[in-house]
């Protein structure tokens, strides 16, 4: 069982927290429980599925593809002459790029710690045309507004992709913790990109209202499908958040903004594949 706090210690001289023995013991116990569960609660096909370690590595390998892509996206954007002029917005994008680079490094270590093989970085065509340069985002590298639109889509999708993987990380508490700490950093990035776009005139907020993207592009709009959901899970089944417990404050807008919805693995990979050269 890997302890990611230990990994952080290893890759950093001034890691903030030391590993904790109790944590390790608990994780081992939960992982042991997990290997037993499928026989009792899940059908036998599940029992023959990947081990808890493999599930963590596989989940992180989906997320690392996204992280590689986002890192390269900001790199290309910042390196493209004249696309993002000097000024506060360029500084914001540089901060985001700095974080994306280290996110790929951490994920790489998490996957290695689970004895997985980290997906390498790819080459990308950010028009979404797989190298044809004729994808649904044709102006992404020659128009800053178009670049920021795709930045918003990428950040919102990244946040939502993490949520779909949470269930695959449960055998390793430190993997869950690190994933969430990356994912809230992405939440901050998304909010900032949205605020930049709002200043430039887009009718959006730092959070996602219904499935409104403020982007006039069908491919972008598609990626917000599901965000209009108002039903949340409870052990009694799905419950509509609108006017929950009779609280009239919670209208459609509030109910959708208050939760970021998952984007599932197939959709996430489809999104990444759109931009990946092969």
């Amino acid at each position, binding site marked *: 069982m890997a302890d990611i706090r230990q990994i952080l210690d290893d890759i*950093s001289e*001034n890691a*903030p927290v030391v590993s*904790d023995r*109790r944590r390790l013991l*608990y*994780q081992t*116990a*939960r992982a042991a*429980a*997990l290997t037993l*569960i499928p026989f009792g*609660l*899940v059908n036998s096909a*599940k029992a023959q599925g990947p081990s808890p370690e493999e599930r963590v590595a596989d989940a992180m390998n989906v997320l690392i593809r996204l992280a590689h892509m986002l890192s390269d996206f900001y790199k290309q954007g910042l390196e493209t002459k004249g696309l993002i002029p000097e000024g*506060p917005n360029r*500084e*914001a994008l540089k901060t985001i790029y700095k974080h994306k680079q*280290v996110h790929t*490094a951490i994920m790489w270590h998490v996957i290695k710690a689970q004895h997985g093989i980290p997906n390498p970085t790819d080459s990308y065509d950010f028009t979404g045309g797989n190298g044809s340069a004729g994808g649904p985002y044709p102006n992404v590298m020659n128009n800053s507004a178009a670049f920021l639109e795709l930045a918003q889509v990428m950040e919102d999708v990244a*946040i939502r992709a*993490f*949520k779909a993987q*949470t*269930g*695959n990380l*449960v055998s390793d508490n430190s993997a*869950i*913790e*690190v994933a*969430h700490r*990356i*994912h*809230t*950093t992405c*939440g*901050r*990035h*998304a*909010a*900032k990109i949205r*605020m930049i776009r709002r200043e430039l005139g887009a009718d959006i907020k*730092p*959070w996602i209202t219904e499935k409104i993207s403020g982007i006039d592009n069908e491919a972008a709009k598609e990626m917000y499908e599901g965000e209009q959901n108002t039903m949340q*899970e*409870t*052990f009694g089944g*799905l419950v509509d*958040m609108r006017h*929950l*417990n009779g*609280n009239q*404050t*919670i209208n459609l807008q*509030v109910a959708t*903004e*208050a*939760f970021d*919805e*998952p984007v599932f693995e197939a959709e996430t990979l489809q999104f990444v594949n759109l931009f990946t050269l092969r």
Partner: protein
Amino acid sequence: MHKDDNHSFSRRGFLQYGGLLTGSAILGASCKKKKRNKYPGDYRVELGEGDIGISNYVFAMEQLSIQFYDLVLGNPYTGMSAVEHATFTDIRNHEVTHAEYYKLTLADNIIQEGFKTDFTKIDFTDRASVLEAAKRIEDMTVAAYNGIIFRYSNTLNMGVVSKIVSVEARHAACIREMIEPNSFASDDVIDIHGLDKSIYPEDVVTALQDLAPKGFKTETLPNY
């Protein structure tokens, strides 16, 4: 929610979380017991154990935010712009939604006493004082969620709370931008690994002592 209540997970939830229902059935401690103060003379707020304790803890964080933003909106500082007012209103309403969700799912296991806060040190007429407090609360809420979410034994709880925490991060970034442009993810909150803060409950309670002087009994929460 809350693990031991029943195991009749909805089919959709079952599929959504990959059919992996964690070790709840095995490791989840029963939390049906009525809360009683095991420590006479200890006036800290009882949270309960297991997943219930965790949800009570994050519910308390949400209540702190709601009480704060109610005061902000009830006594708007001089020069609060329409956008700022709308932002505070949105954030308050999101926190209300989260709190109502926890109320619904905790049902009888909810912390009995109202969560007592102390905002007397905040000057609600002063924009800087309000925003500084808002920043503290939002950053701490994100860090508190990051420091507890992995202790949920049930993936249904973990899944829903995961949907909430990124919205808290959006709030934190937004408030920071209102104070200082481009401070949305400064080095004081994001470390050299690009990780947002994760703060464990006992440290959250200490850090928020001035706003929530009564504190919580964090030792009943699951340990890793």
